[in-house]
């Protein structure tokens, strides 16, 4: 069974990034790169500033927010419009639909969050340093895990973006940083552990070790995609009561 369908991919790409929508995704990475450049020119007092702007801003905010909006919209927009019916009526397997949409969402997140993270890292640290490369690797992994979660969420509920905001802002943003136990279930910390394996920068403060994060990250990704496929397999279109 094919896991990737070019037509579905083309439709998804055009719907997700067409017209002015792409502008929304382009602004955060431009801010990330611009602020990194400005900070480099202004020589801030805190010597750990590259880890802060790249980690606390690029990695913990730009990456999950970009993944959230792209990940919930690749399938969510079709469900909201009702065009998903046309797609489901074709002989394309449901699994292929999910996996294709997931691949597109992940690729788009990598372009709009991971690559800018690398560019900002190169600017901030002045070359292909461990920190810049490490955060890039972590962001690539983060794009995969986050998008699996958000694609799954968008099949499960019509209010995926709102619930995803709670998850990103409260769970990843607050709980995972204050409550140690929440880190074991935090996609952000899996990606951060991976980044730290390359970067070895104590300022990144990863909450889980590398083995745990690789194993848990893989489990979460596969599980989320499996649930998404099952949900779409038994998908029935309901009118939006809200």
């Amino acid at each position, binding site marked *: 069974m094919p896991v990737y369908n070019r037509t579905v991919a083309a439709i998804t790409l055009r719907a997700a990034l067409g017209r002015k*929508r792409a502008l*929304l995704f382009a*602004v*955060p990475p431009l*801010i990330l790169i611009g*602020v990194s450049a400005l*900070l480099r020119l*202004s020589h*801030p*007092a*805190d010597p*750990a*500033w590259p880890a*802060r*702007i790249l980690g*606390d*801003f690029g990695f*913990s*905010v*730009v990456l999950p*927010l970009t993944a*959230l*909006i792209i990940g*919930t*919209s690749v399938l*969510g*927009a079709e469900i*909201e419009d009702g065009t998903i019916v046309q797609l489901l009526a074709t002989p394309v397997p449901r699994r292929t639909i999910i996996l294709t949409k997931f691949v597109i969402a992940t690729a788009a997140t990598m372009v709009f969050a991971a690559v800018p993270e690398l560019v900002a890292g190169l600017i901030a640290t002045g070359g292909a340093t461990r920190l810049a490369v490490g955060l890039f690797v972590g962001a690539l992994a983060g794009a995969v895990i986050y998008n699996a979660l958000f694609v799954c969420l968008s099949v499960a509920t*019509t*209010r995926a*973006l*709102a*619930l995803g*905001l*709670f998850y990103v*802002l*409260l769970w990843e*943003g*607050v709980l995972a940083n204050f409550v140690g136990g929440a880190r074991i279930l935090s996609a952000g910390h899996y990606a951060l552990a991976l980044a730290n394996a390359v970067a070895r920068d104590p300022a990144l403060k990863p909450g889980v070790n590398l083995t745990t994060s690789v194993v848990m990250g893989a489990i979460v990704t596969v599980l989320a995609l499996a649930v998404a496929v099952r949900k779409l397999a038994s998908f029935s279109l309901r009118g*939006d*009561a*809200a």
Partner: protein
Amino acid sequence: MSADATGVIHDLGYQRYDGDRLGRAQIVRTLTVYSLRAAFGLGRGAKAKIVPVSAFALMCAPAIINAFIVARGGTRAFPYDTYSAPVRMIIMIIFVAVQAPELVSRDLRSRVLPLYFARPLRRGDYPVAKFTALATACLIMVEVPLLVLYAGTIASSHGGGAVWAQTRALLPGLAIGLMWSVTLAVIGLAIASFSGRRAYTTGAVAIYFFLSLALAEVLIGVAGDGTAGARLGGLVSPLTVLDGVRQWLGGTSPGPVPAVGSYGAAYGVMLLALVGAGAAALAARYRKAGLA
């Protein structure tokens, strides 16, 4: 009326409405009330209530925890002017990001604006009604937890002097809540009114508020204690601007922005600029009743 209408081809003899026409003010009032109800999902399905209700419950959590702490003999756990700053900032971002599109984007999406403007409603009335509704909703989100905090505290304090001290501390907190509501509502609506796609506008509002907040925190962090950079770093985000203005107006509790010192006026100017820009954008958006 139908008696002298004989011979008029197009009079189908339907009954005319002879009652009072309540006019423009009543339309604005009704629109405001319905929008306010929509902001909390009232009159809608259970799904529409999930976000506002859970946001409200989470917002009240610190105040309820405070009631237990005070009842066990502790002192008030959260100040009235900042409440629990991280909780309030994050919950309000989620609330505005999800509910502002609920108020304006849906009307754009279902193309009902021309129907509104077919009534004796002036161009400015629609955004004013929507703004009043969202600002009131934000006011409920911000002030009710403060009142719970106050009630929980005075329930365990003894003597009129203690109650009066709490009341005097509460009043500036309520005023700051009003400032928050107006600012967040006008900016949120201005961003949300640009598209009929709720997913898109929710993302745009969330990105603007959350990204700028994280950026402000990083800028404040890297600039070093007490430097001008740390004091001015908060200017990039509406939420930290609100905190800077709070300190400028005499708020003493530590907040997300370090002591603004002599830069307080810059925060005041920035707040007026943000609110002004939001209001101008909103007014410009509805000057023409475009369909999308």
